[in-house]
């Protein structure tokens, strides 16, 4: 997807996330933080030309993209080089990546790895874990916005 669209998605998801609580809304907080982070990661990867800024959306199948016909709204499947990533490392992106993206990816993977235990599973997080999650999300966002800020100044 285009950088501008990823940034708009991030802003929308980040605004929703602020209305959610990692304790009371554990499942949706994790999922929304993950989606917001992935959109911002895609914007940063496109900006540093590690991945292709294209008018296609990642499907649920790694490496398969849905390409929209903007007139009809219909989608067709295509396989092409990344492109958007679905999650950190899915599909893999060739190194080297800017250090800020590497740091953000570690933080984002922390959030992605919560899905099995805390979204699909029944574990509940204590207050310390909730603080850790907020810190991971904040780190991811801060690092990626710094990458994008550098890119914007180069334009």
């Amino acid at each position, binding site marked *: 997807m285009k950088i501008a669209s990823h940034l708009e*998605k991030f802003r929308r998801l980040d605004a929703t996330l602020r209305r959610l609580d990692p304790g009371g809304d554990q499942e949706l907080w994790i*999922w*929304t933080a993950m989606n917001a982070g992935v959109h911002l990661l895609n914007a940063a990867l496109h900006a540093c030309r590690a991945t292709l800024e294209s008018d296609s*959306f990642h499907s649920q199948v790694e490496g398969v993209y849905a390409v929209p016909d903007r007139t009809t709204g219909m989608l067709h499947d295509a396989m092409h080089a990344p492109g958007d990533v679905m999650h950190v490392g899915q599909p893999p992106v060739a190194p080297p990546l800017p250090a800020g993206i590497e740091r953000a990816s570690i933080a984002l993977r922390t959030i992605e790895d919560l899905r099995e235990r805390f979204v699909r599973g029944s574990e509940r997080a204590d207050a310390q874990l909730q603080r850790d999650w907020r810190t991971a999300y904040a780190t991811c966002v801060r690092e990626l916005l710094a990458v994008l800020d550098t890119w914007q100044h180069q334009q």
Partner: protein
Amino acid sequence: MNAGAHRAKAEAIEQSLARCTTADYETVIEACMLAGTHWFNLALHATEPPLLDHDAMHAEFLTVGERRKIACVLPTALAALDTIESLRTPYVRGDLAGGAQAAQCALDSLAELRRAALHACTR
């Protein structure tokens, strides 16, 4: 996960979903997918004999054989989960126009899944 835990997770996610409106369509669609999958699994647990020996994560990734079996017993639930999952690529990962309408469609499908699960449990 057992049936009671699936129901508890579905209801917890629906409580969080209540904080959103269709203007938050990306989050609404994802919440419907998460809660809907728990309702779907609750319905599967209620079938006798069991249709699956594991929890379903995404309807899209069930085998052809599993889908054929489920379509015989829980056709509306399978169709509803398929509908919700089909909205994720264009409206959550993508920027197709019409997100609010898609969110309403996801909410309607979630209601269908809830009905199907609770009905399956009373049989």
